[in-house]
């Protein structure tokens, strides 16, 4: 009887270890996480619609049906990410997640400069380069520094009723999620929509800065 008690105790300790391992490893090994679902929808550096008040189903679960949403994946090892949109909307917000779905940073239209969507997401090395040689267009941008290389951005725009549909669609259609070329790079290209450029297959092509864009 003491032996059974002892064995049960060992079993319980093992259960505790298994449980902790599973919980800690899920974020790294989840095969149906947000990143993977977005990966199935579109290439990296390109916005894909996630939810819309007109569509019955959203790509990601538990999202607000009153919002139009788009998401875009990025990889800071390739280049800093520049987010921008010219659109105006009564309420919008942006959340930046790392590869495992952990929220790195978030802001909304009131916390943004001039209520415009303009942000630069950089890693510490890129931040140091930005500080050394601050480009003028970075002044009005929200600067976010992160250690994570890969991640994704979710932009939410409130559509309180269908009459706002044009503004919210315009806001997201205008939204850019592109590689930002740091100013000290040779052959600067600052804007230009590189979103449709080659998927993640060619990771080195994006930063050559030669401005060669395949017409899609």
């Amino acid at each position, binding site marked *: 009887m003491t032996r059974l008690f002892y064995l049960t105790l060992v079993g319980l300790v093992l259960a505790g*270890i298994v449980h902790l391992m599973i919980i800690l490893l899920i974020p790294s090994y989840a095969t149906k996480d947000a990143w993977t679902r977005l990966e199935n929808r579109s290439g990296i550096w390109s916005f894909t619609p996630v939810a819309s008040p007109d569509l019955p189903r959203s790509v990601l679960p538990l*999202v607000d049906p009153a919002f139009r949403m788009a998401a875009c994946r990025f990889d800071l090892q390739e280049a800093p990410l520049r987010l921008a949109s010219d659109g105006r909307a009564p*309420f919008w917000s942006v959340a930046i997640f790392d590869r495992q779905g952990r929220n790195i940073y978030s802001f*909304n239209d009131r916390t943004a400069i001039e209520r415009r969507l303009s942000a630069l997401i950089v890693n510490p090395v890129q931040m140091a380069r930005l500080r050394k040689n601050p480009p003028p267009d970075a002044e009005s941008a929200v600067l976010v520094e992160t250690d994570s290389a890969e991640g994704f951005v979710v932009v939410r725009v409130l559509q*309180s009723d269908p009459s706002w549909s044009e503004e919210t669609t315009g806001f997201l259609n205008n939204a850019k999620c592109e590689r930002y070329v740091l100013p000290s790079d040779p052959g600067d290209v600052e804007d230009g929509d590189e979103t449709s450029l080659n998927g993640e297959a060619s990771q080195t092509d994006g930063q050559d800065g030669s401005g060669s864009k395949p017409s899609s």
Partner: protein
Amino acid sequence: MRAFFEALYVIVIGLGLGGGLSMISIQDNHGFGALSLGSWTAWPLAGSATADPYTRAKVAANAEVPLGAAEGIAFHARNDNQNRPLRRECIYRLSGTTPPGRVWTLAAHAVSGEGLTNAIAQPASLVSRSLLRRDDGKMDIVVGPQSVSGNWLPLSGSGPFVLILRLYDTQITTSSSLLQPDMPVVQRVSCAS
């Protein structure tokens, strides 16, 4: 032979209990890091870098994109004020006030996370800006399958559902939790069956 069965016993307990416990704890309604107000529960740290491991596991396993601290906070209700599970065949009345915020929305979701749709197959939701309010500034919302005048959030299908009230640009997430926010009361009015 005895040693084999003993080892088997230990492994079955370890894997079964450990795995089962993990499955349960990444379902939606776990209590880690939760803020409960009446029927409503929120996970204020879900959208932050300091989220606890359970919340992170839940977010990753369900592919959720939680609201960040500067975006807002989502309150989930699975039960009414008498702790009965919410059912789509029933009619509920929400009354009272919400914590301060720029805008809030109310939506009904299936337990799996999909939004419930209205008659023309669009996701149904209510937005605070277009609500009718009582003279005292409070609001009344009817949640149920049949349309009513006033503020109505449609339900469709049958089975359990989750009500989610999302507050955007609110101080709850950005200041300390000193203030006790008021949340609307979820009362069951009647049930079809």
